[in-house]
């Protein structure tokens, strides 16, 4: 109980810091409610005066932003889902199965962590060009699936689970599939949450690859789309519309995180309960 006070103090300090943190976000919000012409004159000020919702009206009516949002959501979710499946499967194999060449194979996979995306970016581009598969969801998703960190993370996590938990099932001659699905996966919610979050954000903020792969505007993701509506020299004209689009495109993910938080808390509760 004696920590109550200092706990509060910390929260207050962090809250103050959060206010500073939020200033740029507030600025974006304010600008999104100002007319473009006014912003060209001056971007200063934290009051949305003169106030307009025209920017948002444009974003909604032209319906490009919802389209980008759809692509980003499809790509990020599918990517996350597949990464979770294949990484946890591979992680289980490395953590719990004995097979030939296990160690070298694991080292090979972890070594992949050091391969910068940019090192294989150009070859990937030529590969998809050869297959004629650019401008598809597949092209946006598949190159981001080979995430060694996922396998590494899941392997480490499965290794940390006490073997006793599976002993009973093993004595019942349960198959690996059963052990994996019924015992290991439910236990690994926190690790999956972590990996999922990581993959999702990574996919969501991906810029370079979608830029050069999704070259048709029907395939634009949010990052590429937002960049495309900027005028020459990156600013001045259309700043309000750009900000409104940015807010509109980021809002669903924000909301998602607010909901997602419960899962992190759930993961916490579960591990505390065992």
């Amino acid at each position, binding site marked *: 109980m004696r920590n109550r006070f200092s706990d509060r103090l910390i929260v207050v300090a962090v809250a103050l810091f959060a206010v500073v943190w939020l200033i740029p976000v507030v600025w974006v919000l304010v600008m999104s409610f100002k007319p473009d*012409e006014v912003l*060209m*004159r*001056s*971007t200063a000020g934290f009051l949305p005066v003169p106030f307009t919702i025209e*920017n948002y*009206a*444009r*974003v909604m*009516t*032209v319906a*490009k932003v919802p389209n980008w949002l759809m692509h980003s959501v499809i790509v990020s979710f599918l990517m996350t889902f597949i990464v979770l499946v294949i990484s946890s499967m591979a992680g289980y194999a490395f953590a719990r199965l004995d097979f030939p060449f296990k160690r070298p194979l694991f080292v090979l996979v972890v070594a992949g962590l050091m391969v910068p995306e940019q090192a294989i970016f150009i070859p990937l*581009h*030529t590969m*998809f*060009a050869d297959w*004629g598969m*650019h*401008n598809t969801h597949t092209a946006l998703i598949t190159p981001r699936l080979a995430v060694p960190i996922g396998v590494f993370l899941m392997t480490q996590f499965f290794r940390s689970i006490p073997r006793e938990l599976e002993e009973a099932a093993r004595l019942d001659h349960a198959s690996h599939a059963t052990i994996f699905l019924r015992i290991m996966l439910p236990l690994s919610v926190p690790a999956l949450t972590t990996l999922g979050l990581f993959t999702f954000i990574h996919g969501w903020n991906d810029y370079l690859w979608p*830029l*050069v*792969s999704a*070259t*048709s*505007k029907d395939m634009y993701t949010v990052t*590429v789309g937002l*960049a*495309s*509506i*900027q*005028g*020459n*020299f*990156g*600013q*001045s*004209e*259309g700043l309000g*519309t750009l900000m409104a689009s940015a807010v509109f495109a980021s809002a669903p993910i924000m909301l998602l995180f607010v909901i997602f938080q419960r899962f992190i808390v759930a993961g916490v509760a579960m591990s505390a309960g065992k």
Partner: protein
Amino acid sequence: MQITRKTALAASVALTTLTAAMPAAATDITLYRFFGDCEGEFGGVTDLNEAYGECGIITVLTNKFNAENEIGANVITQTVDWGAYYDLLSATYSTGDMPDVAVMHASQLVNFTDRNLMTPLGNKLMEAGVDVDDWADAARNNVTNNGEIYALPFDIHAILFHVNVGLMKEAGFVNEDGSVRLPSSPEELILMGKEFEEKTGQNYIAIESQSSEGMAVRMFDAFVWQQGGDVLSADGKEATIDSPEGLNAATLIKQMYDEGLTDSGLDYGGAEQAFIGGRAGILVNGTWGVNNYATQAENGAELQEYTALDFPTLYEQPATFSNSHSWTIPMDESRTPEEEEAAIAFLKFLDDNNFAWAMTGHLPVHTSVIESEEFAALPHRSDFAATPSMARGIPAVKNERGIYDAMISEFTAMWLAGTSPEDAVAGMQSGVERILRRNNR
């Protein structure tokens, strides 16, 4: 009722013949461009009188073409990230969805024509009725490579002095006839700049000074040309930046910053805001701003009296930095004749509306438009009437963007990192040589 195979077949045959018989069946073509996206504001507009600014005018022109053309062509615009435009356009040659029409700075064209990546357009445009002989020589030369025309020039855009006349009056730089007095020598530039600041308390000049856009490099180029020099040899094979002319120009610009004539902290948007906000006498920027700044002045910005003037001649001969927006048809073997016809028709339409584009502030390419009364009637145009004859670009060279970027980073170091003019020109020279060496190999 059961649909037999035969009836289905007959129906489909009928359908095919029907579509084939209708010349007005929509032929979609894609248009790649920068200039931003203003679909929200001008989405359904086809009346040119309502349009303003580069983005607005090109959007309305596209809408108008789609609404009015009689061959069933439908242009689908794809706006592309300004900073990554050429990267993305080059990437389409791998992804296989080259656009049917793409905007291009004339200085970039040689990258594509040298590798046979652009459709030659000379004969096709002439057959469509484009009067290429009416194009100003500079504009036609810009889009010609080895005697073949590869693009439709749309404008010449050049660097101007945008002027706050109110502040100039305060500084006493306005003659009795109302014309603004600009410096005519390097020494005078510095003297007038200091005097301006004493009298008005504001900066004489606002110019983008960060390392992103390189407005000051354009100024540098112009000053070198004004002395009769150039930054590259005429064949584009050698850098000639480290020269007495180059050093003079660099010294002058460095002095401009050292003497406090301009604020070295301005980025592109900052320079515009300083000017529109009445905090600078002159904005060094291109023709594309004229329409915008005039509109701002009318709508109650601190900038009340606006005009645009020719880039001043400080040395022997007039010259200002220029480039040209042009329209190309990227080479694509899978393009159907109908699509190509539609693309050519669109180019012809844009050519016919050269005047509309000039409303942005850009200079038209058709001599008939330049000499027309309606062009002369546009505000401020007579004040920068000499610009077309002063407009110059660097010699055609592959990898112009790399050269330009190398110059920017070394040049801006003068005021951002405190290097000397001697080091700056030497640095630009070696940076550019590096790129040229790769070009020549």
